[in-house]
Structure formats: structure tokens, C-alpha cells
């Protein structure tokens, strides 16, 4: 008798299972929309693709078969042109931002993986006030339409992440002095 009861209960459970799965799915959905509440002020903006050096992406082309070496060291074989400068180089190195297991994505301090197109989340971890201004469209360059589609720039479009200080530019010619007008 007891066995029959157990069987019936199990049968009901198997019936319930798909419902439970759907529910958790919905749960994750609502979770996502909860997350995108934070992001909601971002995706409507349009960001040009990240300014990779030519032929460098995807990183997994080379890194997929390579052993991850987690020791901090000076790079001597590849990426020798990358120098950390003016960016707390004593406290930081490659794997703080680059994900060791899949080099095609970046890794936040929380362990969350993000694509290179969303690198502003990575920079925003430390530069929170700047990130806030950037989202409002006040830090950094914005183009497009003042009352329509606005094009943002990634942090890395203006700041080389390894040497973030803005590079000096050659100025355009000064105006003609009155004394030089004929």
C-alpha cells in the first residue's frame, strides 16, 4: 500500500517537474530584467566596435592552446609593446582584467565575464563617478542627435587601457593676427 502511495507521489512529481522548470525559467527572466534595470540606461546607446590593434582579436586564436601562467612577470615573447603606465601599474597586471580561461572576454572583479564591447563595466568598477558621468553623456564624447539616437564611445576609444592618459594632439593653426592682414 505504502509503495503505491510513493509511486503516486512520484508520478505527481514527474508531472510537476516541467512546471517547476518553467517557473525557474521565468524566475531567471525576471532576474535578468531586474539586472537590465541597471543596464536599461545603457543599451539604447550605440557604441562603435572596440579599437583593437589589427589582427589581435580574437585572442583565443593563440591563447586557446596555451597554458595559463598566473605568475606576474615581464612579457618577453608577445605583447612586448604593452606597457602599464599611469594606471596603478604596481597594483595591477594582465589577469586582473583579462579572463585567463577565455581570453576573448574580460572579467570583472565579481567573476562576471563581459565582452570587449561592454568594457565600460570593467573601467566603471574603479572609476565609478566617471562611469556615472559617462552614462549621463557628460564624460566623454557623444555624437549623433541631441534629441534622438546618440552614439557613445567606449572608454578605450580615448584612453588606451594600459596607458590611459589622453595623448597630446597637434593643434590646428592659430587665427591670423590683425597685423598680418593685407
Amino acid at each position: 500500500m505504502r509503495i503505491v502511495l510513493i509511486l503516486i507521489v512520484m508520478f505527481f512529481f514527474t508531472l510537476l517537474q516541467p512546471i517547476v522548470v518553467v517557473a525557474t525559467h521565468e524566475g531567471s527572466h525576471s532576474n535578468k530584467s531586474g539586472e537590465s534595470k541597471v543596464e536599461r540606461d545603457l543599451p539604447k546607446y550605440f557604441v562603435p566596435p572596440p579599437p583593437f590593434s589589427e589582427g589581435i582579436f580574437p585572442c583565443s586564436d593563440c591563447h586557446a592552446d596555451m597554458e595559463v601562467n598566473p605568475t606576474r612577470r615581464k612579457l618577453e615573447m608577445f605583447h612586448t609593446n604593452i606597457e602599464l603606465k599611469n594606471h596603478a601599474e604596481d597594483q595591477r597586471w594582465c589577469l586582473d582584467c583579462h579572463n585567463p580561461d577565455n581570453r576573448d572576454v574580460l572579467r570583472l572583479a565579481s567573476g562576471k565575464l563581459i565582452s570587449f564591447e561592454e568594457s565600460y563595466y570593467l573601467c566603471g568598477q574603479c572609476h565609478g563617478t566617471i562611469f556615472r558621468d559617462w552614462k549621463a553623456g557628460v564624460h566623454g564624447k557623444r555624437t549623433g542627435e541631441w534629441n534622438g539616437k546618440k552614439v557613445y564611445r567606449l572608454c578605450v576609444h580615448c584612453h588606451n587601457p594600459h596607458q590611459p592618459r589622453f595623448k597630446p594632439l597637434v593643434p590646428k593653426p592659430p587665427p591670423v593676427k590683425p597685423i598680418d592682414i593685407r
Partner: protein
Amino acid sequence: MNEKKDKLTKERRVSRRSMLKGMAAGAAAIAIPNTSDASIWDAFFQKHFREMNSSEVSAVIERLEREYSEKYKLPIEVKATKAIPGVKFGYGLDLSRCIGCRRCVYACVGENNQSRNPQIHWITVLTFKEGEKWVDLEEANKYYNPSKVPEPGHFYMPVQCQQCENPPCVKVCPTKATWKEDDGIVVIDYNWCIGCRYCMAACPYGARHFNWAEPGIPKEEINKSTHYLGNRPRYKGVVEKCTFCIQRTRHQPGRYTACVEICPVGARKFGNLLDPDSEIRYCIENKRVFRLKDDLNTNPKFFYFFAT
């Protein structure tokens, strides 16, 4: 003889007014070249821009487009887009970011058909040494030319029309050729400007510029998309100034101004002061903002700020 004359004047007394009118008409008839082209007369008797109805405006625009296409051999479009209701344009400039590269100056020249020779720049970039007495506009250097900017120990301050809410230039214009539009842009009707330059004397920001000669623009560099009150080609002897790129911004959706679009450091911000979500409102509400020569009560809509 005398009696006869007296009689005549009594009979057909010519008033001073009609006499002068007749003389003026006669002089005009002699002065104006003998041509069948009515456009000279149309231009001469063109009504004030704000008193014209829409059909009169479109007739004027048609005439101007014809004149420009003859003069420059290019199809130049002249718009007369009206102000968008509920919009008051405001501008922000981040002094902590500007590096003085003058990209904005030349983007403005190209967009707004400024004369290359003689040279007219609507934007002037001033440089100041850090620690010196500053915002002394008259003593500031605008001719700096180092190999790279920013120079260490210097900062830069671009100055252009501040689009005052209480514009002194408008007050002094004897022909009402300049006025403030509903969206806050101070504009000039180049067909009504008589070139007296009172407005230039009245402007505390040096934002107005005079066409001392026929504007010289290379044909291939002319911006063919123009606005009647903005960047349409000017004449010799008229005053011109920044109009917040009226030909770009007065649209739904409207583009950012040329200077905002070119700025490599993103120091320039533009938006609707009446929209609480606009960038300019964010600047005013969250940053340390000041306005140039605020004490003159010109009430500019151009806000300088420090974002850091």
C-alpha cells in the same frame, strides 16, 4: 511771373514727404542697374523676416536659392525651419577637459560657411597660464601655437556666442536685424543687417564678426545645407555669429552642433535646458558651473564647468 508761381504752389502744393519720396524713388531708379531681373527689387523691398507669412518666406528663400546657385554654381538649399516648441538650447563646456586643439574652430568654419579669406572664426580659443590672474579675456592669448597641446601648466577656454537670454547685441540693433528666437538662439537676418557694427561693440564676449570684404570660400568646401538665419552664404558688410548650428539642431531628431561632434575630448555638451534628462541639465545640476561675465546680467545659456 512771381504771381504765377505762387498760384501754382498754392494749387499743387508738394509736401516735404512726397518730395523726398519722389527724390528717393528717382535716385533709386538711377542707382539700380538697368536690368529686367526683379530679384534686386525683391531684395530691396523684402519685409522683416518675422513679419513675413509663410508664402512670403518661401518666395524669399526661392529667390535666395536662385541667387546662390548663380553665384556659386552649386545647388544650395536654404531652410527656414522654425524653433521646436518646448526647446531652449543650452551649451556646456568642460574646462577641465579642453586641450585647446582648435578642432572646433575649423569644424565650425566648414559647417557654417565662414569666410576663409579674409578669415572669420566664430570660436576663439584662449589660453591661460595656471596660477595667473585669469578670465582676463582682453589679455588672454589666442595665438598660441606649440607643437602639441595641452602645454603643461596651461589651460584653455573656447569662447563663442553665449546665446544670452538678455542679449545686449539685440538691444542696440537699429534695424532689428538681430533677435532672439523662441528656442533661445540669437540670430541675424543678413538681408536686414546694415553693417553698423553696433552689436559688435555691445557684445561683451567678442562673439560677433564682420565681413569686411566679400566672403572667400572655396567652392568645393561650401556646405550646401543651410538655414536662412544661420549658415547661408553671407554678404560683404554684414555681421555674423554662432547660431548653435541652427541648420542641424532644429530638427526632430536634430544633430549635435559641429563643434560638439568634432571635439576629441568630449568637452562640449549640448541639449535642451527644458528637458530634465538632457546632458546640459545634468551638468548644471551636478557640476560646478559658471557663466562668463555673469555680472553683466546678460544671462548666457552657455555654461562653463569643471567635471572633475
